[in-house]
């Protein structure tokens, strides 16, 4: 049951930070509330003060700067806004593709990308695509503003580098290199994903000129798998599929993914099974992203 709390509705970021600073551990940022209120109802979290940041004008921006090639997503932009933004659909189709598959309509309607990152529940999708884009978050606190890559921001289950009085204000997403194609495979039968594998590839003259791989949900946090990218980069497509040599190459990359992602055994399945799935889906994702 939801215990009584005081609701603060600041209209500027500074005001929000000062309320957070004032009440310390007794206060929490309240965006869509899809995680927060659930956890409070279950008695897992308890706060006397909630700071609703949805009343801060402009914090829900979804904006693209042509000159820098960077998409700015404000802290209160919802999954639904990203799913439906024509701009995102056109220039960041990986985002709209994944956002369309996040949770359910009710959660997407109110849940925010910022809230998803700050909560850092391991069974999540956005971390994966943000890692593929090399996205950064901006945080503002009493000590000022700072930027950090999403990769460094998420530390582990329910753990980020965010200080209690810091507000995540924006997420900055640079465009993928011209000619990139993507695949995102989401697997599982529970409400939340058991596995998310994202892959971005650029094919040049029949070879894999560039590749990025990220994995989420199977382990404590989403990860980029740079050694596997390295291993696959430059491979010719003919070498990638359908022969024993390619199978050995993919096995190796699959192992690297498993090492990086550190699959855990939980209600979604055993670590062994998740490792197996990573290998299976690596191949599927590669085919999807390279073959059209």
């Amino acid at each position, binding site marked *: 049951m939801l215990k009584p709390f005081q609701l603060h509705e600041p209209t500027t970021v500074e005001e929000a930070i000062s309320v957070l600073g004032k009440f310390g551990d007794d206060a929490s940022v309240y965006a869509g509330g899809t995680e927060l209120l659930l956890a409070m109802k279950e008695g897992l979290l308890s706060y006397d003060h909630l700071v609703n940041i949805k009343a801060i004008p402009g914090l829900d921006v979804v904006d693209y700067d042509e000159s820098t090639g960077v998409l700015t997503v404000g802290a209160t932009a919802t999954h639904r806004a990203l799913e439906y933004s024509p701009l995102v659909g056109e220039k960041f189709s990986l985002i709209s593709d994944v956002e369309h598959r996040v949770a359910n309509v009710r959660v997407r309607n109110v849940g925010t990308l910022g809230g998803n990152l700050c909560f850092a529940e391991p069974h999540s999708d956005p971390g994966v695509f943000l890692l593929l884009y090399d996205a950064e978050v901006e945080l503002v606190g009493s000590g000022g503003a700072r930027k950090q890559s999403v990769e460094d921001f998420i530390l582990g289950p329910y753990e980020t580098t965010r200080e209690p009085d810091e507000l995540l204000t924006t997420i900055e997403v640079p465009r993928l290199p011209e000619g990139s194609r993507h695949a995102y495979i989401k697997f599982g*039968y*529970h*409400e939340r994903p058991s596995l998310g594998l994202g892959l971005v590839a650029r094919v040049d003259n029949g070879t894999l000129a560039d590749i990025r791989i990220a994995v989420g949900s199977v382990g404590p946090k989403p990860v980029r798998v740079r050694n596997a990218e390295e291993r696959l980069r430059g491979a010719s497509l003919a070498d990638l599929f359908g022969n024993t040599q390619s199978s050995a190459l993919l096995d190796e990359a699959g192992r690297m993914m498993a090492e990086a992602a550190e699959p855990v055994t939980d209600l979604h399945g055993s670590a062994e099974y998740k490792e197996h799935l990573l290998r299976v889906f690596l191949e599927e994702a590669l085919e999807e992203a390279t073959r059209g």
Partner: protein
Amino acid sequence: MAIVGTSTRRPDYLDKVTGKGAYVGDLEIPGMAHAKVLSSPLPHARILRIDASKARALPGVFGVLTAHELGDMDPYYGSDIKDRPIIAIDKVRYEGEPVAAVAAVDLETAEAALDLIDVEYEELPVIATMNDALTDGAATVHQSNLCHESHYEWGNTEEGFAEADRIFEDTFTFPMVYHYSLEPHTVIARYDELGITVWDSAQHPFLVRNELARLFGLSLNRVQVVVPYVGGGFGSKSYIKIEPLAVALSREAKRPVKLAYSVEQSAKTVRRHAASITLKTGVRNDGSFVARDCQIRLDTGAYADNGNRVTDRCADQVPGPYLWPHLTVTSKGLYTNTGAAGSFRAIGGPQAAWASESQVDMIADALGIDPLELRLKNLGAPGDVIRQGKNPLDADIATGLKEAAKGVGWAGRGAKPVTQEKETKRGIGLACSVLNAGASPTSTALVRLHADGSATAMVSTVEVGQGSKGVMAQIAAEELCIPLEKVGVVASDTAIVPYDRSTGASRSTTLVGLAVQLGAKEIKQQLLDLASKHFEAPEDKLAFADSSVVFGQESITYAQLIRQMFGGPAGELMGRGYVTPQTEGPLKGLPVFWEMAVVGAEVEVNEKTGAIRVLRLVSVSDIGKAINPKQAEGQDEGAAMQGIGHTLFEELIYEDGQLLNPNLVDYRVPSFEEVPDGFETILIENEDGPGPFGAKGIGEGPIAAVAPAIANAVFQATGVRIKELPLTPERVWRALQAGTSGGHKVDALTEG
């Protein structure tokens, strides 16, 4: 027949789609307090001390209930086995068991009071599994860990095995699953000097009344159970659950009390029995079944609830609809330190059919016989006694099975459907079983014909989503020859409507519907008496049509006859319907009828991930007469979908007595994603049931047959036999891993 047999619109639809319909949670009773329960954090422990003094002293708290307050009564209850205390006494037997309850001015105060209650426990060894329960020298949940045992046999099974050419022995397991009705258990209780009134989300209002009267020492007339709309039951609201706790708390707080459980609390209050079933089956090389020995274990959790009947019914159903010259069945319900298990749609049926129908397919494979042919060879026919001492089979399973086979495209043992994708394989499977349905034939109804010729049928059947209100009205309107909109149904208030045993076991249309029809007939007899006098004509020259009694070219309306009788626009006629074991017709033994469970399924298995997709599912139900065909299909499809749930992913996971997944994020129920692309219900209508217009009940059958049909389809697709449910992708993948070497049947490995 103009009304019966028509898919008329159900009367509650607007209430439900607009959210106007009132459920117990929506009701407010003047002076009502709000209750919260302090649950045990431990699955098995002695209660050394409870100190609730601080909670009692909290302003806004009206009363705190602990075992201490029940000293003046015998506080143990249950549907048959009275082993459940109203609130934990001396020890707790499952994590989540109510240890104290608070009634307060609002929920916040009640919650705050819970924090002030101090309980000291001494942990006891946890009986986490049925194996623990059976271990020599293990701790005991009650006096012993055996809750109930049933046994029957005929022929001589040992001799039968000696006669057999082949003997198969396999063990199958079935998981604990939860009903997940949208509305958790909710009750408002008022205890005062006049007696007890409860507003209840319950399926068996009269059984709740009877048990409350017994517990609190009142005569039946002083206990009233009022049931508004119920947000789904599926058995989770059968018999009696949290009503005694709410009444005792009201008695303590001296005011009405609302107790609304969370999903988590409800999931720990009742679930389906997990099962482990070992079948030893002897057959001849030509496929004739000779002998079977069935050893069933069912996990009833901390309390019996309805576990004794589930234990019996699982035993009744485990041989399947086959004729066995020699049979031995032993079924044991065992206590463990987990939430109690009770009734769940088709009690004991899914567990029994899972084991039996999986093994029948395995036998067919080993003998090289088509599984359809093997079944047809051994099936009982209508009129055959399939269970000694019970009514003969009244369902034509063979016809149903052939229909299902045709519907799902069964083309024989070797004829697998083809798939275009390289990772996937397709297969078709069949399964059939019978459920001894109807519980017992004790139902009554009252039909009132008002002075204007409209009518009210009064029944105890609870509108639990199945559409009973519409169906009862259709039956009354048809029998009385009046328009459907002239019939209202008043239901499920024990102070107003007459007795019915229960809303469950596919029984209401058959038995309560029959009572309504008998009540309407009694009214018609009175109308004949009146019209006979009016026309000065013998009754056999009279007929009924359009709210009138007709005599040749003349007619007189019911309204006119009633007015003549009462001397003005007043009065009414009353018709009684009694359905008892003495009622003429086939209700003399049990079961009331055998409900057919027949399913054909086509699946696609992804061999790389183990994921199963159900492409086509056809179920066949023998309904006798569909009063409302569309609603009947809805019931059938609902049962099939619920079966897909426990087949593919539903499982309550307990670890050392702690429930790990009491929410929909971690416990997956089927959604529209799982609705098979081809989803068909075939209704057999021979108008041969014991109910009104030849109807018999449906709504449970498919849930029993879905799992084996799917597992048999997975076997045809992949050659892998899995004997544990649910068939999660990982379990299927593991089985495929273990099976790829030989390409033949292997058991799934147990997951770590």
